[in-house]
């Protein structure tokens, strides 16, 4: 990906975050955590496409993608997904990412 393509993708992400910030003032509370983990996943995708990702980042993204729509399920399901994702990240803290 060239610099312009990279900047374009980051701009798309920035716009997603900024519009979310505004809309979340009126949206259901759980959309906030959903947008945060979704942003993490989108960011990892952009880094990946630019050849700047790592195994641990990709693993976090896959974990998020596999469970993020639990936001539309029960509160317990979503909380469980977020909780396990936190420990998934914690377990990866000491890995270098190579």
């Amino acid at each position: 990906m060239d610099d312009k393509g990279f900047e374009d993708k980051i701009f798309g992400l920035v716009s997603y975050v900024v519009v979310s910030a505004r809309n979340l003032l009126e949206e259901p509370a759980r959309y906030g955590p959903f947008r945060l983990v979704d942003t993490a996943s989108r960011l990892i995708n952009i880094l990946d496409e630019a050849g700047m990702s790592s195994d641990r980042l990709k693993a976090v993204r896959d974990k998020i993608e596999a469970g993020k729509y639990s936001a539309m399920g029960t509160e317990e399901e979503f909380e469980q997904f977020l909780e396990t994702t936190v420990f998934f990240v914690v377990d990866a803290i000491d890995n270098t990412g190579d």
Partner: protein
Amino acid sequence: MDVMTAIKGRRSVRSFTDQPVDQDMLLKLLEAAVWAPSAGNGQTWRFVIVTEETMMKKLKMVSPGLLGDPPAVFVIAQDMALSKQKGGQMGPETLTKMDSAMAAQNIMLAAHAMGLGTCVIASFHPGAAAKLLDMPEQIVPTLMVTVGHPAVKPPPPKRLFEEVYWFEAYNG
């Protein structure tokens, strides 16, 4: 496909294949939309169908609820000035939202019957979407519906049944 099968089988699809949706299919969905009921038969809805990549990319930037990469999006807008004229204060405040929702459901059921996947979207910034789509001031986007060939078949989220209805009078 019978109506009950379509109603129960439709799912919110947030992952699509790259295959575009034929224009005649999109027009068929538009036809389904305008056959929805509208308050006082006002038909104050206005539709912009986005299929072109550049506009889709821009629209996604102001629509956090628009997930996945759909090949087509119906932006269901309302002519608020016309709605006020036809429906009084209730028009722009309430009836426009209801009318748009009826049109959206028709699009989604017809699409499902045609083997397409859809998702209705309320999480977007109406002012920002209107600006990107060159809409005049009185035309306000109210809902979007993404349309495409589904890449997944999402499991049906649980529905409440026994605890949400009563006959004759509310008895909760």
